[in-house]
């Protein structure tokens, strides 16, 4: 008998997903919105738009200046929230999720927030959640991308700043002439029976066109076993705006949080 995969055995949930597409936001607003969705009841799939290129750092990642000997593609960065950022630098914001640093702007950035454990993610085990999402993201680009798989070696990758230079079983990969190339990475946060999943996928490697972003996000919701629900496109719900502003002020827009 063929071994079942998490895709095949996933039970269909009675829950609906809500698409959240607020348009381009600042680095701090984007992180604050993901954090807010982690604390809201319900299932949210969200498209992340960036006002300008931004580096996001993992929750506990050292500031990249302190990392030596790495070949990273990042330009000089400064903590988001500084009143007068140095010229010719990019803003960097710290995520609520773990993992390595990601340069956003040209990528396809999404976030998913929902209940865990739940019919969608029966176990709170990070490897299980990451594996399932990786398979589903690869399925969006079927025939082109796969999930890397293999053994977890998180501790040995901590000195590498750039997420896309790290290797993880949950990487979305495409085959190049010299082997697998990382085309997508994910990071997670678990809090009070909820999970937040943030993903960055390289449009150039996956042929992911911005025109298809919404349709792909919708497909991902269905792949998760959720039913299609409402959408918030453009303006965010009014009741979110106060909590969002507070999270920007108190955390994600604070240089002390971002510099770590």
């Amino acid at each position, binding site marked *: 008998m063929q071994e079942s995969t998490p895709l095949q055995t996933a039970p269909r949930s009675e829950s609906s997903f809500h698409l959240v597409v607020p348009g381009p936001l600042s680095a701090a607003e984007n992180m604050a919105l993901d954090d807010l969705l982690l604390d809201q009841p319900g299932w949210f799939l969200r498209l992340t738009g960036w006002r300008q290129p931004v580096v996001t750092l993992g*929750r*506990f990642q050292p500031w990249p200046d302190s990392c030596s000997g790495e070949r990273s593609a990042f330009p000089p960065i400064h903590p988001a929230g500084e009143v007068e950022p140095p010229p010719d630098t990019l803003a960097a914001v710290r995520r609520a999720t773990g993992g390595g640093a990601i340069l956003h702007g040209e990528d396809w950035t999404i976030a998913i927030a929902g209940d865990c454990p739940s019919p969608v993610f029966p176990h709170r085990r990070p490897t299980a959640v990451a594996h399932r999402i990786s398979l589903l993201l690869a399925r969006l680009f079927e025939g082109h991308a796969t999930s890397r798989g293999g053994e977890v070696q998180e501790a040995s990758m901590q000195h590498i700043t750039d997420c896309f230079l790290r290797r*993880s079983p949950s990487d979305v990969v495409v085959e190049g002439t010299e082997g697998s190339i990382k085309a997508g990475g994910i*990071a997670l946060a*678990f809090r*009070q029976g909820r999970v937040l999943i943030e993903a960055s996928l390289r449009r150039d490697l996956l042929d992911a066109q911005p025109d298809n972003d919404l349709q792909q996000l919708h497909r991902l919701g269905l792949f998760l076993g959720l039913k299609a629900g409402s959408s918030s496109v453009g303006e965010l719900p009014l009741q979110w705006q106060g909590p969002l502003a507070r999270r920007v002020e108190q955390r994600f827009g604070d240089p002390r949080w971002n510099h770590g």
Partner: protein
Amino acid sequence: MSNVPTDRHYLSSHEWAQQVEGVVVVGISEHAAEELGELVFIELPAKGDEVIFETQFGEIESVKAVSGLNSPVTGKVVEVNQELIDSQSAISDSPFEDGWLIKVEPAIDSGLDLLLDHKTYQAQLDGS
């Protein structure tokens, strides 16, 4: 099957509490440690900080995932396991002994009476 010591009480989110000479020792269960997998960072409160029953008091990172740690007791932190800041291996290797996280002086309304006993927690694990 994960070990569930009978001399502790538990939150459904897998943190444990043990009263020892008026102080409450707090940690995460063996089941939680196994689920988290390889640990890479931890953030704990400082000595003197207040913690609140069923409210997040720290965070731990494993496999690109940051997980909140919920307090099984309300009170004041009197000691922090500083050895975990450099290496979290004790949490994986000895979650009920060397891998303890904080020690708390409980408040009057500590919440301890609301925790699960070992049988109820074991039943939760068996049903998951």
